[in-house]
């Protein structure tokens, strides 16, 4: 009889599985009219559709995912390549170009060494470029993965691939999967919150935090820098808290009559949701008020409450980027506050990392140092702050992007600024906390950083790692839709591997 491939997961008790299974089927088919949403609101979390894949909490109760939209150059931040530096300016070997598709490179480009100085830091001896001076102090808490690779080389499909598991639209985002699976939140905040900086929405748009085929209750809630932190949170002008309370009492009373008369569970639920909305109106502004933090904490991140910049509303913010821009730092601090308040998944996007070298505003030598300065102190502060509060053990922090950048120069040699094209075959990410074994560099690329040569790790493996650390079996954490048990990691088991070496 067939045997299934061995996998890196533990199985659950079969009897429990059967019970769960039955409840799952029941949830799927038997709850009739109100459909799956009724499930989401009525069935105890522990009995939910995903129950067979649950193991309870993993090491990571919370996840903070820092996505650098545009794809930073790994070769100028993390992946030190002396050989590439020696080859700087020489023609790219033909075999690296054959059969390859690039976004912009045409003809035979030249190799581009890094202009930045690299050195080793910490007990782990991690290599870092001099663009990340602060980060050097936390490398021993971090696992740097240099052998990442993906299937996509355009931004929108690449970001979708990383965050929804497929390069087309329609998938459920990582955060929505975890919201769906973990469910429990603080009393007054959504499970999945999204924070943006850099002045633009990432290329893949709001689908990157969409619920896809999952119930829409799991979509990420964008927490905004201006106006209401959550859309429509504030009362209309002239409606005081007292007026609102008075009105909601009446809404509640009349809705109660309806619920009693119709015995409609949804009406009953609605009463609770209105009360929750009312509580959120005060709880959310409190949670997002980073100005309440003491000065030494603000300084730790480089956060500046209320920081505003013209690039926020500029059509093309890139030329207005400054290293002192505190929006990303503010969001890092905010992420910590949200996690403390029970938000399970905080997704940060920072836009402006697409350094082709077509203009100085998007170049490796001019813009990358600015962007690096914006994040260096902020991510360092975040890790230190989580650690000093004892939150790092249960909070997984991931720093990633949709792909990396080429070892070749994209633009003409004659130009006074330099750039690299999109590179899906090798890039670097790092993870810390939440069950990650820190103080290590995992995976290796070849001498010029073109391909991984040791422990290649696909973005699906990264997804599997995150799910695993959050307490889910990545292979069995699924949701029935369109006749399939949909999974974040895609339909093909053989393409996914959990990298045990990364786990603490």
């Amino acid at each position, binding site marked *: 009889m067939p045997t*299934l491939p061995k*996998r890196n997961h533990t199985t659950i008790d*079969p009897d429990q599985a*059967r019970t769960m*299974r039955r409840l799952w089927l*029941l949830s799927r088919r038997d709850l*009739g*009219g*109100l*459909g799956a*949403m009724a499930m989401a*609101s*009525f069935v*105890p979390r*522990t009995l939910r559709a995903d129950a067979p894949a649950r193991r309870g909490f993993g090491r990571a109760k919370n996840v903070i995912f820092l996505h650098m939209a545009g794809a930073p150059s790994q070769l100028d931040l993390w992946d030190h390549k002396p050989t590439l530096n020696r080859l700087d300016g020489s023609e790219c070997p033909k075999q690296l170009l054959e059969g390859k*598709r690039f976004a*912009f490179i045409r003809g035979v480009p030249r190799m581009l060494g890094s202009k930045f100085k690299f050195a080793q830091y910490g007990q782990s001896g991690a290599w870092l470029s001099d663009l990340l001076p602060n980060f050097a102090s936390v490398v021993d808490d971090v696992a740097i993965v240099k052998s990442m690779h993906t299937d996509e080389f355009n*931004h*929108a499909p690449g970001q979708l691939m990383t965050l929804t598991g497929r390069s087309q639209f*329609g998938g459920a985002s990582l955060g929505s999967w975890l919201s769906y699976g973990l469910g429990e*939140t603080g*009393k007054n905040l*959504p499970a999945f919150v999204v924070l943006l900086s850099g002045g*633009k*929405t990432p290329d*893949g*748009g709001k689908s990157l935090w969409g619920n896809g085929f999952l*119930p*829409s209750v*799991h979509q990420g809630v964008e927490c905004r820098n*201006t106006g209401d932190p959550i*859309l*429509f949170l504030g009362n*209309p002008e*002239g*409606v*005081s808290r007292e*007026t609102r309370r008075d*009105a909601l009492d*009446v*809404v509640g009373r*009349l809705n109660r009559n309806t619920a009693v008369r119709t015995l*409609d*569970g*949804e*009406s009953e639920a609605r*009463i*609770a*949701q209105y009360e*929750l*909305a009312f509580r959120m109106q005060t709880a959310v502004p409190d949670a997002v008020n980073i100005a309440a933090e003491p000065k030494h904490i603000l300084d730790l991140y480089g956060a500046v409450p209320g920081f505003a910049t013209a690039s926020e509303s500029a059509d093309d913010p890139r*030329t207005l980027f400054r290293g002192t821009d505190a929006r990303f730092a503010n969001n890092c601090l905010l992420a910590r506050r949200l996690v403390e308040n029970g938000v399970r998944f905080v997704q940060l996007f920072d836009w402006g990392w697409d350094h082709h070298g*077509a*203009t100085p*505003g998007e170049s490796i030598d001019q813009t990358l140092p600015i962007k690096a300065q914006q994040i260096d102190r902020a991510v360092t502060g975040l890790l230190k702050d989580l650690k000093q509060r004892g939150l790092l053990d249960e909070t997984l922090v991931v720093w990633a992007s949709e792909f990396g950048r080429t070892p070749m120069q994209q*633009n003409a040699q004659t130009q006074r600024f330099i750039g690299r094209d999109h590179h899906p075959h090798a890039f670097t990410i790092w993870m810390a906390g939440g069950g990650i074994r820190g103080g290590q560099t995992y995976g290796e690329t070849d001498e010029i950083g073109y391909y991984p040569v040791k422990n290649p790790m696909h973005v699906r493996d990264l997804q599997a790692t995150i799910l695993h650390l959050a307490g889910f079996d990545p292979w069995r954490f699924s949701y029935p*839709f*369109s*006749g*399939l048990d949909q999974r974040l990691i895609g339909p093909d088991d053989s393409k996914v591997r959990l990298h045990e070496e990364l786990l603490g």
Partner: protein
Amino acid sequence: MAQSSAFTCLRVLTGLVLTVTWGPLAAKADPSSASVAVDFAHEVRPILSRHCFACHGPDPAHRKAGFRIDIKEGAFATLDEGKGAIVPGKPEASEVFARITHADVDERMPPKETGKALSTSEVQTLRRWIAEGAPWSGHWSFEPIKRPSPPHPVNPELIRNPIDNFVQASARSVGLTPAPQAAPAVLLRRLSLDLVGLLPAQSDVDDFVAHPSDANYRRYVDRYLNSAAYGERWARVWLDLARYADTKGFEKDQVRTIWRYRDWLISALNQDMPFDRFSTEQLAGDLLPNATQDQILATAFHRNTMTNDEGGTDDEEFRVAAVKDRVDVTMQVWMGLTAGCAKCHDHKYDPITQVDYYRLFAFFNQTQDADRWDDAPLAAMPTNPQRAQLAKLQADELSLKRKLVAQAKQTPDFLAWRTRLRRTLSRDYAATAAAGLLRPIVRGSWHRTGPYARKGERAFDVAFEPQNAPFDPKRVFDGGQTRWNERAAWKDGAEVRFGDDRAEVVWYAGRTFEVSSRRRVAFSVRTGVALAVWIDGVLQPRTDPVAFEFDGEWLPGVHSIVLKLADNDAKETFVFDWRADDVGTEPVQVAARLLAPQQDGTDESDVAARFFSVFDPEGSDERRPDVPFVNARATLQKLRRIRAEREAADAAVARIPILKDLTAPARRKTFLHARGDFLSPGAEVQPGTPSAFFPSRGEGNRLTLARWLFDPRNPLTARVAVNRMWAQMFGRGLVETEEDFGAQGTPASHPMLLDWLASEFVRQRWSPKALCRTIVLSHTYRQASEASRQGIERDRYNVWLTRGPRFRMEGEMVRDNALLVAGLLSPKIGGPSVMPMQPEGIWRSVYSGVKWETSPGEDRHRRSLYTFVKRTSPYPSMTTFDAPSREVCTIRRFRSNTPLQALVTLNDPVFTEAAQGLARCMLTLNLGVSQRVAQGFEWTTARAPLPDELNTLVALFRRRLAYFRKHQKEAASAATQPLGALPPGEDAAELAAYTVVGSVLLNLDEFLTKG
């Protein structure tokens, strides 16, 4: 138990008992299978599909041990060891049964790693089925539709039509009885919401409450079905399937003009276009014989696929993605099957092989669209008023031309001139040409120089050397580093990619024009990002950053154009259109007309106009007002004006993406894509339908596929369509998984009813309105929706349909009706998408300068299906109410219930404005407070408030009035922001207090819910 969480409700399902009534029993309850025997199609096959097919199903690549159980041959095969897989009548002798009950958990099937273990009851079902002889049939939805006869009625007085026979027989088999008819006001509200999506008028409610007869009900059914709002309500549903949006998607997400498709949809639904025609026109309207403009317009359905304008993308990759989307959507919308998995491998559950998939792909693989930035091919799609206007202008133009010719012919000088000129031209064309009269403008070829960029600045904002000077191909720049390079291949009228692989740069393009006589010249340039134009070294003023039009006269000599073209993503293009032709000023054209043989219908008005403009004795009009020249001058002026008007009207016509097949020589070959990768072509395939079904007939184009979908032998199309309409009205389909009628979908709760409705739909010539009518006339539909304790315990989710439907309205309906009761809703139907109020800063897409600007006037209060849909940033309040982003086809929306929704209806300025509007409507009534509030309550809920409810609301009003009197500033804001200034003579505090009441009414469960 449950964690009380922000995003789940606090109530917990108590007593899971209800669930035992559904599932396997569903089939047995249905009279079609009212025997005690296990029903294979509805009880056994779903178990096999869910637990076994993944490894022992249709997909050979993933099949384990060479064994399959999805087909009869496999299930009853004799295995290697000589044992029968399934031995009918003998569970103990069946290897399959032995394996699923194996004592050793490591040997037991399905393997525990799969998490697909069978429950005890499932094992028992399989055992009974084998013991009963293991009868086999195909998957239920793939079996032909037979028209079942309605079972004998239980309560004839509760039977309105055969729907009730089926539903009540099923209900009785599980011991449930139907509810009585809903109260008239409730019923009319439900009917109106279902048929037109809007609350009924108060006067209609009053009338129906007074005369709740069946005849009167039918009168309202017909009235609503004939209302133009019907088309809008049902178009909204179809737009989710069509993945309709006003942008192209992906990173750039630029605007796409495709709203005329929505107009078509509304109109087709309102005309009750039969579903087969409705579908055929959308899939293949362009291929119908003598296709009309509307039939071509319908094909925009499949042009709602996304286009990727992101820099550095491979157009073929995204063309293929769009074609695959068309395959998937077609199979899902019409067949209820998910074909998508067969892109990479044979489907694991349903009989769609990978070859089948690419055969379907081949039907769609011949269209001209190819992920181009301009979305070509486009077609001009005038609206009816535009068509009428254009026809009138064209007729006016024609009659003016005729008049002009007639006037010329009355002038003896003209005939003599024409004869003389024609003679001269024919005799000595060469000489005339040499004299310059006939020489055409010589257009030099394009030259290019660049790219240019400067550190720290946006290249387009920088003045580089080539600009501000007439074009001279010999000029060099940057001290000789850069020069003009000829680009002879750049054709006028064609899309030209002017850059190379460099992004964020500018290029210059230049050329000369040699003019031999004073000429009227007209041309246009358009590009994607930014454009500047110099004519003869002079920068031309413009209003449009990416387009330029010139229309003027050039003197004899050499003229030049220089264009500055921005390329942000290394794939930008421009188009140069040359039009140097105009009545009266273009001697070449005139000469051509004069020389042309007379019988070819040449437009003599050009010749006449030329005559009058050349020979018109200036200033003679006062002395000789009767001469033809004077009259002609007026005619000419009029003609020019009308022509300008006609051209403007032409330009205003929307040009929208349509389907158009390539001509024969350009046809593509279709290959299987190994692992779904378009870069790994496999064997060539021909167009065809999935081989598990009957074959298609025809020439293998999209029309062939459309006809196959509506072939009487197709088992799915009608079932899927009626189920969808049922789901809209009852909140849940007879097949709950509307998107999946395959092996993994839920079985039908009422299979006989589904088949009866499907056959009835076909019998009624696929008329959606007739189907709709049949459903709403049933008693099942008209039942009261309140549940009893027993009803809740036995059938919490009303699977057995012994209550009327009750569920929250979709977001669009919530907004539409809030505007309606506020007296704000615009009745305008159709037209371009609109932008209602939206908070600042929602749109921050990369590289898209398009801004959200609130539409003026009534357009900000249009029905929600007209709201502009930007795929990467859909309208936020609707998203909160479960509306999809339209990137992909959405067959079924979830219905969530969240605090964020409460925040929308409490605080979104759209709803604040509606509350203020409702307050003003209440205030205009010449009544006391209590009656006004009662009236507001009735508008929103279609019933009078109970005394207690009214007292509660009136007390709220009085408390708020007292408060606002003390807080005048708050009162002023609460009553007017954002709706606008107080009506003259009104008291802000009073209006603010009514606004609070209005907001409460708009947040009542009874308002938000269709009950």
